[in-house]
């Protein structure tokens, strides 16, 4: 029998043996915290999770024993940290009791971590011209992606947007790693920036509100490019168990199907989504 202890130390079922992939459930620790405007960045030690992470995957965190639901966060960055193997960064927007609790954690706090979860972004051929559009804290979903794209020799343009500057994530860091960074505050500026940039791109990757994702999908479609969106739906378990995150998609034959945002997503090809049901 697989005991929880084995699960917690990261062993996997035989079907998954081989290269590390798929999610694991581990007891993690907050290594460091930092305020980023309106947000809080947590750096977590979660043994085995970082090595498995890919751009567009996410983590589910427990917020104390009393709350059953998990809280889900994009894996913003994975980096080596002496003595801990790899550690993970994630960005918390304190909006409710659970996220406020997380944002208040101090280094050393223990926390159950499950991840990496979900289907990642599909990477394009080498040297493709890519546009990345990130809104608010959701821009965290694009950091790992930008690094991987750069490693493949892709041209990366990044458009960051937010309702105000305190909710703008990662401009300075992005300027170090991405060819062009455009900041667009407000919906009109965003629409202009995305429409302009998309004309020169083969693939558009987007993370943010449904409105922003749809804007990107339409811009990519008008420019003849592809679009992949990282959808943020309310998730309870985040692990595919509860069926609580329905997303209506169209399969290759045009049939409507209801799938789970957490397992079949969170990244979807824009043309597969039934946008009307998302609004």
């Amino acid at each position: 029998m697989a005991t929880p202890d084995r699960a917690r130390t990261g062993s996997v079922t035989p079907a998954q043996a081989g290269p590390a992939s798929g999610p694991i459930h581990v007891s993690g620790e907050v290594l460091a915290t930092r305020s980023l405007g309106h947000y809080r960045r947590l750096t977590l030690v979660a043994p085995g999770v970082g090595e498995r992470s890919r751009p567009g995957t996410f983590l589910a965190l427990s917020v104390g024993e009393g709350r059953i639901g998990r809280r889900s966060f994009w894996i913003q960055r994975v980096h080596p940290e002496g003595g801990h193997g790899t550690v993970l960064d994630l960005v918390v927007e304190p909006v409710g009791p659970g996220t406020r609790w997380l944002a208040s954690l101090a280094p050393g706090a223990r926390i159950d971590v499950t991840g990496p979860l979900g289907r990642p972004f599909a990477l394009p051929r080498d040297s493709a011209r890519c546009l990345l559009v990130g809104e608010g804290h959701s821009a965290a979903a694009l950091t790992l992606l930008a690094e991987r794209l750069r490693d493949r020799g892709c041209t990366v343009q990044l458009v960051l947007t937010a309702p105000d500057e305190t909710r703008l994530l990662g401009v300075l860091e992005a300027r170090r790693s991405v060819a062009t960074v455009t900041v667009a505050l407000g919906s009109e500026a965003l629409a202009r920036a995305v429409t302009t940039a998309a004309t020169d791109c083969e693939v558009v990757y987007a993370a943010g509100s449904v409105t922003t994702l749809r804007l990107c999908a339409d811009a990519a479609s008008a420019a003849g490019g592809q679009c992949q969106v990282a959808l943020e739906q309310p998730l309870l378990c985040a692990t595919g168990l509860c069926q609580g995150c329905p997303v209506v998609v169209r399969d290759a034959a045009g049939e409507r199907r209801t799938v789970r945002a957490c397992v079949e997503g969170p990244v979807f090809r824009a043309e597969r989504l039934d946008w009307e049901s998302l609004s």
Partner: protein
Amino acid sequence: MTDWPFANPVWVASGCGGTGRELAAYVGLGGLGAFVTRSVTLQARAGAPGPRVVEAPSGVLNAIGLQNPGVERFLADDLPVLRVLGATVVVSIAGVSLGEYAELARTLGRADGVSAIELNLSVPGGAGTGILDAREPFQAASVVAACRRDLPRGVLLLAKVRSDVLRVVETCRGVADAGADGVVVGNALPAAMPDGRPAGLSGPAIGPLTRRCVAEVVRALPALAVVAAGGIMGAGDARAYLDLGARAVQVGSALFHDPTAAHRVLAGLTEESS
């Protein structure tokens, strides 16, 4: 009665283990007493629109709308995977009529690798789900009788009843007399989403209520096999049900908090007894 085919008393509750594949990413299904599937219906159901699941104080509210691929796709896609994963499979079924329940039981009872059928007679979503209303004990009993008739030997028939303290003993007596091999007490309780839509409430919030129901049923019907389901988060909760006389327990909402919860409960029980 058919032999009790379950190796240990810790099961995964219906609707709480995904298709089995998702849970198997963390833990082996073969180590558990049983894996109860989400409720399978004759036709595929797309389920309710979101939001479907929200937190409640010490619990979870769900309005899934019984999303499932229908019995045909379940047999083709999900059951073979559960078998490969080594699960002891209990298939939960829900029908819009007696005839549908009977057809589902007959079809699934003949499929290889099904150890038991769990009749979902306590859908918390109410009339909006279109599922047969088994609110009265005689209605629950008639579903059991209709399914018992065509179920092959060797496949257990379990009735999952609502943890309604006032009716639960009468309901359990009725389904036992109609031929059920055991009862599952209980289901998520009828509740409402914040916007007023019908929902089911599960989790620690309903544990004490379910415990009362289990206690009453065990006292009144000592020969009946009772599987307890409600609010089990740790081994202590499971032990309390087993000490009352439950033959097994189902871990449900706790899996949403920790996908290894059922194994944690089992390990805790095993540790106690060694």
